[in-house]
């Protein structure tokens, strides 16, 4: 009898101690775009500003698209005179905060396009926050 109560107490205390993480439905995707790819480009870059209007942290855990073999989040930094890209498995958007995918910082990497894209085309991207997801249309934009 004491063990289930203890487990319940622990679960409640954990829940109360750390802020809840909401699903994607609360997420706002602003100015989503994919830069026009040059011919032979095997990887494209996508940008957007993601806003979390909720009172809880939101955690972006992945993305995919029917138009690409795979989609990843990448950060950029300068290390020893070289620009370094690294995959980010999860990205956090704080309560009432923003996450900015913009040139030179974070970008969405879209691998192996299934077709040629031209300015004006639209690409549907699914953004995942754990088990929740949100779809957004990213417009292919001329450089």
């Amino acid at each position, binding site marked *: 009898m004491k063990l289930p109560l203890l487990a319940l107490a622990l679960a409640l205390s954990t829940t109360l101690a750390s802020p809840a993480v909401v699903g994607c439905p609360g997420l706002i995707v602003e100015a989503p775009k994919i830069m026009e790819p*040059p011919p*032979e*480009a095997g990887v494209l*870059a996508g940008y957007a500003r993601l806003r979390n209007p909720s009172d809880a942290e939101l955690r972006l855990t992945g993305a995919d698209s029917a138009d690409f073999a*795979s989609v*990843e989040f990448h950060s950029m930094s300068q290390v020893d005179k*070289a620009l370094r*890209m690294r*995959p980010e498995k999860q990205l956090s958007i704080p309560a009432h905060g923003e996450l900015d995918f913009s040139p030179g910082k974070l970008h969405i990497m879209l691998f192996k396009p299934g077709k040629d894209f031209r300015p004006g085309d639209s690409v549907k991207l699914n953004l995942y926050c754990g088990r929740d997801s949100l779809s957004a249309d990213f417009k292919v934009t001329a450089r």
Partner: protein
Amino acid sequence: MNGCRHWMSRNLVARRSALGVGAALLLLLGVWANKTLLAPTLPVLESGVLLPVSRQIQAFSLVSDTGPFTPTDLLGHWTLIFAGFTHCPEVCPTTLAQIKTAKAMLGPEPVKRLMVLFLSLDPERDTPERLARYTRHFDPDFRSATGTNAQLDSLAANLGLVFLKQIDPQSGQPVIDHSAQLVLINPDGRLAGYLIPPFSPETLAADLKSILKISP
């Protein structure tokens, strides 16, 4: 008497030799002064630096879609080199687009004295033909070249560029960390300076205009 004449003869030879050496030294000093002290003052760039004295580039042999690309191809014009690869999603296409926009601001005459070269660090995927199709998307006059990994290592080191190839653990695809600065080669085919990011087409154009005014 003979001993005295012999001494005088030897002394004359020594003096003539000393004069010859002195003249040679003066000539060398004059050449050095002409190249350094009397050389035209180099412009101050908004987004880069010109080397006070240009540096020799070691011999190299690359390949382009039109055939070999060697130091001879660098002669007679300024060359702007950007090193990257076609699977680079952001920095490479962005930089090439910025260079294209800057080049369009130069005017028809200065443009004739400039060549832009996209150097691929990814010869496994960037064949010369693929590379050329990618590069000419930005500007039909942009050149491109690549080489063996050994050639690229050597040339990059000579030009002061760094790059590192790794495999992205998630996608399994090769990724290349690389320098983003632009290398300036003067019409003598010598390393003359760098343009350093972040770039804007306006500052690139201003710097290129300054560079293209430098007398050979």
